[in-house]
């Protein structure tokens, strides 16, 4: 390696360290994600959101499903859980019910959350469970070899659709809003500042929060579709994305090369599951209702 790489400019303080390092398990780096994969960028934003929102890290847990994004739980320096395929949300729901003091973050991919886990997603949103869901949407099942996902846009070529995808896709913000989510936003990995801000808002918001982050998949999606590398995807996000905060979610459908509507679409207050549960029990049982004891240890 040439000396230029190791050149340390004289004004750099010796104690300078990457601000995200305390939030990540740096002993596990380098991570498994491909060069240019956007998941690392979203984790970077998540670490900054943890820092800026000043949540209690001892009471914050992260749950992932299976897939490329499912590996996030293994890299976050929080209590983290890598669950079975599609079951991140039910696992998170159980944890929230067992210990309502926890901040529960579900961090998973589009295949995990919307294909096998689709039903869990809509029911958690309907109940307004107080969990925060981050979906990294790379448009494909990446870890298993590039199969068609429910989010793969039309005419894309995938390993299971060599003549092009012909199925309509899910519009994730519309699905989340219709199911009852309290907070719905969409950004791309180009919008790093906005992602970090949205995640910070999400950590402070009560109720079911959903953030979709469009991310490049250079190895399996773009290569097969001749869409260039990750940098080309980022340039496309920069040019094609249009910030429309509060836009009706019916207008946010994604296509292969068309406009990407990004922004915060929904921010509303609904009573969350635990509040509704308590109100119903108190109204029926009156004095006979006692709050369940929190059996979790203080650690």
């Amino acid at each position, binding site marked *: *390696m040439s000396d230029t*790489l190791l050149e340390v*400019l004289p004004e750099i303080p010796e104690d300078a360290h990457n601000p*995200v390092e305390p939030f990540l398990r740096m002993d596990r*780096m380098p991570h498994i994600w491909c060069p*240019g994969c956007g998941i*690392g960028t979203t984790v*970077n934003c998540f670490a900054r959101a943890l820092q800026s929102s000043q949540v209690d890290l001892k009471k914050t847990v992260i749950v992932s499903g299976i897939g490329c994004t499912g590996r996030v739980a293994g890299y976050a320096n929080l209590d983290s859980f890598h669950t079975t395929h599609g079951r991140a949300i039910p696992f998170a729901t159980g944890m929230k019910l067992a210990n309502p003091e926890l901040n529960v973050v579900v961090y998973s991919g589009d295949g995990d959350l919307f294909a096998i886990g689709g039903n869990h997603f809509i029911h958690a949103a309907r109940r307004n469970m107080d969990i925060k869901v981050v979906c990294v949407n790379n448009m494909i099942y990446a870890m298993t070899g590039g199969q068609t996902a429910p989010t793969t846009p039309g005419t894309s070529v995938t390993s299971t659709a060599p003549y092009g995808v012909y199925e309509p896709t899910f519009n994730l913000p519309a699905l989340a809003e219709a199911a009852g989510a309290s907070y719905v936003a969409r950004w791309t990995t180009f919008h790093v*500042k906005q992602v970090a801000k949205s995640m910070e808002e999400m950590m402070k918001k009560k109720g079911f929060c959903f953030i979709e982050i469009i991310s490049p998949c250079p190895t399996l999606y773009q290569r097969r579709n001749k869409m260039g590398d990750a*940098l080309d995807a980022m340039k496309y996000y920069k040019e094609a994305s249009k910030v429309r905060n509060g836009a009706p979610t019916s207008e946010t459908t994604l296509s292969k090369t068309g406009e990407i509507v990004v922004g915060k679409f929904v921010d509303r207050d609904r009573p969350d599951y635990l509040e509704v549960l308590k109100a119903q029990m108190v109204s029926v049982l009156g004095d006979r209702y006692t709050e369940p004891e929190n059996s979790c240890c203080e650690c």
Partner: protein
Amino acid sequence: MAKGFVVISAERCKGCGFCVEFCPTKVLALASAFNSKGYHPPHVVNSDKCSGCDLCGMYCPDFAIFGARNAR
């Protein structure tokens, strides 16, 4: 005197080029040299222009670079 500086962990870099492309003041360029995994990490070509905004650090998917402002 630059307002900020960047620190690069060349060995962690996978050469995606996000930091080079999106640096607002064009401080970085991909080096012609390789790291031990065969990627071209970025190096500083314009250290005077660095504002220490840390946008490179936010874009980096590999946590291999960050920027910070100088104390003064």
